[in-house]
């Protein structure tokens, strides 16, 4: 705590409240934790909040890639935790928003190398400077997950409407302290399949998990296109998926935005628009 705090500009006497630290987790891999972290973080920052993203997936670093910041990363999480560099040296500023920073994961290290206590202190130090600290958790329920959750005050559970994802999400919720009040994002929903009864609906998923529903994101090609380019889709004003992420950001910020199970993206106008913007 002392070490990190010393790097942070002294807090004004009338101390402002600490920022919120939210771990994004799922148990199962490949359900969209990193994409969610990047997009929600970018949307929060675009709305004017100061946001720090931590990639806690040590050994499988990807958040930098999704954000298109891979070429800017010089130092990583473990460099900071092991005091080789200062926190400010390691924070990568986003290309698009001056409010958004990233602390990348170490690629050539292992999850077990992270000291849980130091990680907690680091998150706390970031909370003094940022309104939101989003922590991208690795898959699994082992040490990597525990480290990611250690400093967090809240949790977002990302779950796909699919049996193994729901079961793992249920397991993870059982492992998190209740004080973290986990909220649910149902990701990669395909409305056409849900309509035919071939996919669990958002209601089905949440009848099992029973969590406050933070948002629903469809399984859209736009997401893959955005990841290809390293541009968060939440910054694309014309994209329905982007708007789903922006809604999630607004709900996190406390706005009352109702969650509707959305229709698939790609009404005629959206398609024509996408065609002319070249987002294919």
């Amino acid at each position: 705590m002392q070490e990190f705090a010393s790097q942070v500009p002294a807090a004004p006497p009338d101390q402002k409240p600490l920022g919120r630290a939210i771990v994004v987790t799922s148990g199962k891999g490949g359900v969209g934790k990193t994409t969610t972290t990047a997009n929600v973080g970018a949307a929060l920052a675009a709305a004017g909040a100061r946001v720090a993203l931590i990639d806690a997936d040590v050994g499988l670093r990807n958040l930098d890639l999704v954000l298109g910041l891979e070429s800017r990363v010089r130092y990583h999480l473990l460099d900071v935790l092991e005091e080789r560099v200062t926190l400010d040296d390691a924070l990568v500023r986003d290309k698009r928003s001056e409010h958004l920073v990233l602390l990348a994961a170490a690629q050539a290290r292992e999850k077990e190398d992270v000291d849980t206590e130091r990680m907690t202190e680091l998150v706390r130090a970031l909370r003094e400077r940022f309104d939101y600290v989003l922590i991208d958790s690795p898959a699994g329920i082992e040490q990597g997950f525990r480290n990611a959750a250690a400093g967090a005050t809240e949790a977002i559970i990302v779950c796909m409407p699919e049996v193994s994802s729901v079961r793992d999400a249920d397991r993870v919720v059982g492992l998190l302290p209740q004080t973290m009040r986990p909220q649910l994002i149902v990701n990669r929903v395909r409305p056409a399949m849900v309509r035919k009864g071939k996919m669990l609906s958002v209601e089905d998923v949440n009848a099992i998990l029973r969590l406050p529903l933070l948002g629903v994101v469809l399984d859209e090609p736009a997401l893959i296109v955005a990841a290809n380019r390293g541009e968060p889709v939440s910054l694309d004003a014309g994209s329905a998926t982007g708007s789903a992420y922006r809604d999630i950001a607004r709900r996190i910020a406390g706005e009352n935005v109702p969650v509707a199970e959305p229709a698939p993206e790609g009404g005629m106008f959206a398609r024509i628009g996408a065609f002319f913007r070249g987002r294919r």
Partner: protein
Amino acid sequence: MFEFLMRLFRGEPSGQTAKERLRLVLLSDHLSLSPEIVDALKTDLLAVISRYVEVDEAGVDVTFEQREHEVAMLANIPIRSLKPRDELPKPVLATVTALPAQEPAPAAAAEMPLPKAETEAADAVDAVLEPPAVAEPVVAAEPGVAAEPPAVVPEPEAQPAPAPAAALTAKQRKRRKRRAARAAAQAVHGQPDPVQQPLGTSAQA
């Protein structure tokens, strides 16, 4: 139309199957109980209740329901008639003391929340499956039972007078042994589970 025909031939849509499979798998995740154990529980439950009232076995329904923070067991057991007064066994099973003090309502709908504790439940299941040899505390308590022939497990304070073990039928003895082993196992494991703790306590008495 095509969809309808497909559904007709293929049965329920896969989303429905997924839902049902998930419900069951999560139930056993939370309870750590296998279907065999749940069936055995149902059988035991019926055996106990039918000592007091005549139940309609075909209409018995035991389900588990997921709630906000727990899974509850709901037993719906239709009662056909009461047993004649003189056929009623003297209570009390040690297990009965473990139940929440609920009046046996006419519909006999017992409802008891089970804690979400997974490992403890798993231990309990192991204990039932492999009764350890240490059954001593229960054997000591056993003589108390025989005074009331139909009763199976001792009522700690009520019947201090020992009765000859020979008064028991072989079946009763076998049943009692199983229960004793279970009680001992739980005593050994030191169950924190509120439902099971009294069992252990009575075994130590």
